[in-house]
């Protein structure tokens, strides 16, 4: 079965800084990986996904993520954050077995100080 770990519960940066939010997974086979953002009081919004091909994927609003099979990771990055990026970020994995079961990490709360 697949599992997801987001090692940082909280990350605080200043506006204009770069940020990396970490996601590690465990599963031996082919998987789908995705990142979501949750602003306070709202549902989860899709940011980006990876299944195959170029390990660096671009998402909305300047976010990108890089897949590493050797590290079992799918870290999310942004070169210059804005205060509006303050939110909770979730990493999700789904094993490519046809059951479309998505497992989420515990989330990382990003606080951007203006």
């Amino acid at each position, binding site marked *: 079965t697949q599992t997801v770990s*987001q090692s940082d*519960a909280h990350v605080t940066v200043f506006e204009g800084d770069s940020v990396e939010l970490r996601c590690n997974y465990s599963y031996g086979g082919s998987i*789908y990986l*995705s990142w*979501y953002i949750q602003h306070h009081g*709202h*549902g*989860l*919004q*899709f940011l980006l*996904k990876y*299944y195959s091909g170029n390990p660096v994927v671009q998402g909305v609003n300047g976010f990108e993520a890089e897949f590493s099979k050797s590290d079992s990771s799918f870290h999310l990055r942004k070169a210059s954050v804005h205060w509006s990026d303050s939110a909770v970020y*979730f990493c*999700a994995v789904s094993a490519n077995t046809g*059951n*479309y*079961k*998505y*497992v*989420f*990490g*515990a*989330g990382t709360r990003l606080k951007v100080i203006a």
Partner: protein
Amino acid sequence: EAAVTQSPRNKVTVTGGNVTLSCRQTNSHNYMYWYRQDTGHGLRLIHYSYGAGNLQIGDVPDGYKATRTTQEDFFLLLELASPSQTSLYFCASNPGQGTQAPLFGEGTRLSVL
């Protein structure tokens, strides 16, 4: 526009009460999911379904029933609600083909007193 609609948005009940949370998707998606969100745990999968009449057990199913009555509608039932089920509940849908990630509703906040 693709949408997942949950109702009610907020619900308060008492211990032992009977609660039904509703979810409707208008995306013609095959898969629908119920998650609960708790601090420190992220989203945990309760039940999911790949079509009308189908039910798959998730990772935290105890105390919950679910029923998929149509392609569009997926219900979560708490027949004897307990304070431990106080949580934020999310419904999501997914086409179940290709690589599209799930689309989420806005959530239902449930308090069991």
